[in-house]
């Protein structure tokens, strides 16, 4: 990690006064306490449980092996993997595409309104979005019922059959999250110097060529940032399947995702060691992804 070129935006100026040596510690003390109590200790605690057995003896990897042998484990990995693939592709294609289209709009006022409209579903993140989509997916009440019937689904249980869940969860996640990312991408597009675009236009580049040759390459680090964060969040899938399992007439199981399985181990099977093992796996995935991104991407390098 030592190669991380982390500097403030004003980091080029290296003349920091050595005088305020201890005051800084007082300023960060409260935050450090919270960081230790709710970031570091739970991590350590999870690791401790993952590597010990019910008798608090060191158990090596046996919890990991046992959790992985559970009949629900592999399906959960497959579910989350499929969901991630669909969601990430949808995010990259549509968020980038819509941001580019919005950026080309000549009418600025319309653009503002559209961006805000796309952003609003973000207010329904969490349980509320699942409520809304339960209704949207129920052909008896949905405004999209004709469309659902066209696809051949006449009842709620047909729509939410297990094979559909990954794509439905991806759709819900896209509905709540895409608007925020479109705003971010739009902001990044605004930061591309105008003269570069103008130069391309004078050289005869059309809108599509400008997008392909200039804008998308310059957006790349933002797209990577989005994919990394969305990947990390996506591995944690919990609310959507948990609520659907309570509302699906038993169609969707309560162990669809890894986080649900961890929850079930802890609270249904009273096996905190297996639960902790799964938590640690998810934690390691997110930590590795985050650490690689922070140290390798130069994203947090202000120069």
């Amino acid at each position, binding site marked *: 990690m030592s190669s991380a070129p982390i500097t403030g935006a004003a980091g080029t100026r290296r003349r920091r006064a050595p005088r305020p040596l*201890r005051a800084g510690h007082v300023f960060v003390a*409260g935050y450090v306490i919270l960081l230790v*109590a709710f970031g570091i200790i739970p991590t350590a605690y999870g690791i401790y449980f993952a590597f010990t057995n019910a008798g608090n003896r060191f158990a090596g990897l046996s919890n990991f092996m046992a959790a992985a042998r559970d009949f629900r484990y592999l399906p959960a990995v497959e579910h989350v993997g499929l969901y991630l693939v669909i969601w990430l592709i949808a995010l990259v294609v549509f968020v980038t595409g819509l941001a580019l289209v919005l950026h080309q709009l000549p009418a600025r006022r319309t653009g503002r309104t559209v961006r805000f409209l796309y952003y609003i579903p973000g207010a329904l993140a969490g349980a*509320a979005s699942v409520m*809304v989509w339960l209704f949207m997916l129920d052909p008896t009440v949905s405004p999209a019922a004709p469309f659902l019937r066209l696809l051949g689904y006449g009842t709620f249980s047909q729509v939410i059959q297990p094979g559909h869940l990954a794509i439905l969860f991806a759709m819900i996640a896209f509905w709540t999250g895409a608007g925020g990312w479109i705003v971010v991408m739009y902001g990044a597009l605004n930061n591309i110097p105008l003269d570069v675009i103008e130069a391309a236009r004078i050289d005869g580049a059309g*809108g599509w060529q400008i997008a392909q040759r200039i804008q998308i390459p310059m957006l790349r680090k933002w797209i990577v940032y989005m994919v990394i964060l969305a990947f990390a969040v996506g591995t944690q899938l919990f609310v959507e399947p948990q609520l659907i399992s309570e509302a699906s007439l038993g169609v969707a199981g309560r162990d669809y995702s890894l986080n649900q399985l961890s929850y079930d181990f802890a609270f249904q099977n009273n096996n905190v060691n297996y639960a902790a093992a799964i938590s640690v796996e998810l934690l390691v995935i997110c930590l590795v992804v985050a650490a690689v991104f*922070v140290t390798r991407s130069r994203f947090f390098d202000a120069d």
Partner: protein
Amino acid sequence: MPTETTAPAAVRVPGAGVARSRPRRPRRPARAAGQILPGLLLTVFGIFFVLPLIWLLLAATKTDAQLVQDNPLSFGSWHALRQNWDALTGFQGDAILLWLRNSALYAFLALVITLAVGIPAGYALAMMEFPGRRLLLITTLVVMLMPTTTLVVPLFLEINAVHLVGSLWSVVLPFSFYPFGVFLTYIYFSTALPRDLLAAARIDGCTEFGAFRRIALPLAAPIIALVGFFSFVANWTNYFLPYVMLPQSNQYPVQVGLGLLLTDVPQFNPTAGNAAVLRPELALATLVAISPVLIVFLFAQRYLISGLLAGATKE
């Protein structure tokens, strides 16, 4: 490349080059087709994003029979809305109001602690030199990129070990730990506050705390609003943590309460008992549950979409 794009949170001071005006391009009739396709795309996605919300607004004004029989996008009646509200508040004796109060309390307490702790920390990381600063910064970045849900089960084990499960603090304190807010504050002060200003204050005999109080804090309004906004929205919409930490239904925040209501809707859960909740009541409950965040969104609209918050979202 301008520095704004390289930092993930290009927080700019309002008024400082907010909207870069683009020159209007003359519309050429030959490219009409090129205008229609984007318009169509934006409209289709517009419907996708907005239609469920419009439906939700209208559903709350209908009876359950109207919900099924009438046009999905028709208005019911004020009378039905009133009835739905009465039935909703009748559920477990004003439970919905209690849940809203709980949500407000948790989100507000966490917000106060987040700001009180995070603003000074971000300021110190940006403007002061002290041993451990770099380590703290890297740790913050890494933790910030981890979704909050990652630690829920380990957090439960920890809180359980100190016998705090079911208490207010089991939710409020983990909510208050908000590394993303610290990071935003760090970026803000490193870009918006000239070091020379602080140096001048020190030469004039200002202590570090004096400089923070007299110089940094008066300039901090935009970042306090920004961190407050994200912290509030994140905590109000959090489901997993309170779901795990709070066993009693009278402690639920409204998000978890929605889940409880859902299990009492017979159309979604045939095993629902006799305390059945009708679908329009659930729709109304959802609306009520999201209204505080919607209101905050409307007030923040100008900032949200102007690109001012570029990079500042974290799901």
